[in-house]
């Protein structure tokens, strides 16, 4: 059994707090020999914003030719999709919002054209993970990001109940997450739980 994990590092800053959190999750997942991981840094992925042209409602594909051409197929093929973002101005980084908005092609496929996003036998077997870090200490600092994340997973056929979250606030300076008392252990535990659940789903 191979478990395909596709991970998006959403921060414009490479190897900062949110990417470190992602790396902890991926390292723990990667300890399992059945797991194959692909990590993509969105700042290098050449994904443009959605143009709102609604052409995908007719064409079943996006009219833009850019990085999403590659990740569109990978999003369908993956078993587990991990998305990480820093919180900028109380929401997802705009680099992440670009990816999330471009999932409109999946929403058109699902709700306008009434076509499957994944083959029926893979439905309910995909899992999502959302990782975020914020400099602010407010507990509500992630509230505006979560609905967009839920929407993204929903249109790519990952159910609301199948998304795991790890969101760490109060990590402001570069590298601050390393000194966080629980983040690393939480990341590793989340990774183990997700892979165990993923195996159960794929075996079912």
């Amino acid at each position, binding site marked *: 059994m191979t478990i395909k994990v596709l991970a998006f590092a959403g921060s414009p800053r490479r190897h900062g707090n949110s990417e470190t959190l992602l790396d902890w999750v991926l390292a723990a997942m990667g300890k399992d020999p059945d797991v194959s991981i692909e990590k993509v840094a969105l700042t290098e992925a050449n994904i443009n914003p*959605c143009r709102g042209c609604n052409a995908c409602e007719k064409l079943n594909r996006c009219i833009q030719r850019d990085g999403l051409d590659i990740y569109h197929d990978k999003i369908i093929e993956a078993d587990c999709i991990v998305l990480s973002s820093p919180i900028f101005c109380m929401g997802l980084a705009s680099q992440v919002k670009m990816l999330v908005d471009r*999932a409109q092609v999946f929403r058109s496929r699902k709700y306008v054209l009434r076509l499957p996003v994944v083959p029926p036998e893979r439905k309910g077997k995909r899992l999502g993970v959302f990782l975020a870090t914020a400099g602010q200490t407010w507990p509500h600092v992630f509230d505006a990001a979560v609905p967009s994340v839920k929407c993204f997973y929903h249109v790519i056929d990952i159910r609301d109940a199948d998304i795991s979250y790890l969101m760490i606030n109060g990590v402001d300076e570069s590298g601050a997450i390393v000194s966080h008392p629980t983040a690393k252990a939480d990341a590793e535990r989340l990774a183990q739980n997700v892979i165990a659940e993923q195996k159960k789903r794929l075996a079912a």
Partner: protein
Amino acid sequence: MTVNVLGISGSPHRHGNTETLLDSFLEGAKAGGASVEKVVLKDLTYSSCRGCNACHKNGVCIVKDDAIALFDKILNADCIAVASPIYTMGITAELKGLIDRGQYLWARKFILKTLYFTDDHIRRHKGLFVSTAGQNWDHVFDGAFPAITAIFNGTGFEYYDNIIANNMDEYKGIKNHPTALADAFAKGKKVVGVLMAMEPAGP
């Protein structure tokens, strides 16, 4: 006194529901006697915030592009109407990209302490959020408000009002909405009236 009203259209889609609603607001503001300008973000060239934090040292963004001139324009306006359709339960990436670039103003306020807006300044600067959503959910705008609050706070504007209309999919467009366009016009006229009626700012 001239009231300067700046409309910022964050939709990638020209003359769609949100921009039409913004246009009604701006027409109302004009009818109220304001000087009105509209900026369309998709016609500008600016990149996303790099998160490099260079601005934390000197309050200046190292990326020189159209975003900086637009922030200057925002800081010189008396009233701004920031418009975005709801995409994926939030504002568009174009508008989020602009708002994130305001980090250098945040750095001036909170790290360098070289920028400060008095309560009186904020009272005299009104910000409005203009938005439409296809979904009929009442909570469809909730993910947008915090980022809008962030840009108003960062640029010294009071978050004065929302001009928002959901359920566009059902209405088949803003033009078929029973009240939205007229309400937007009325709110444009009203906010200009409120600003004009204020006593002159002190020395």
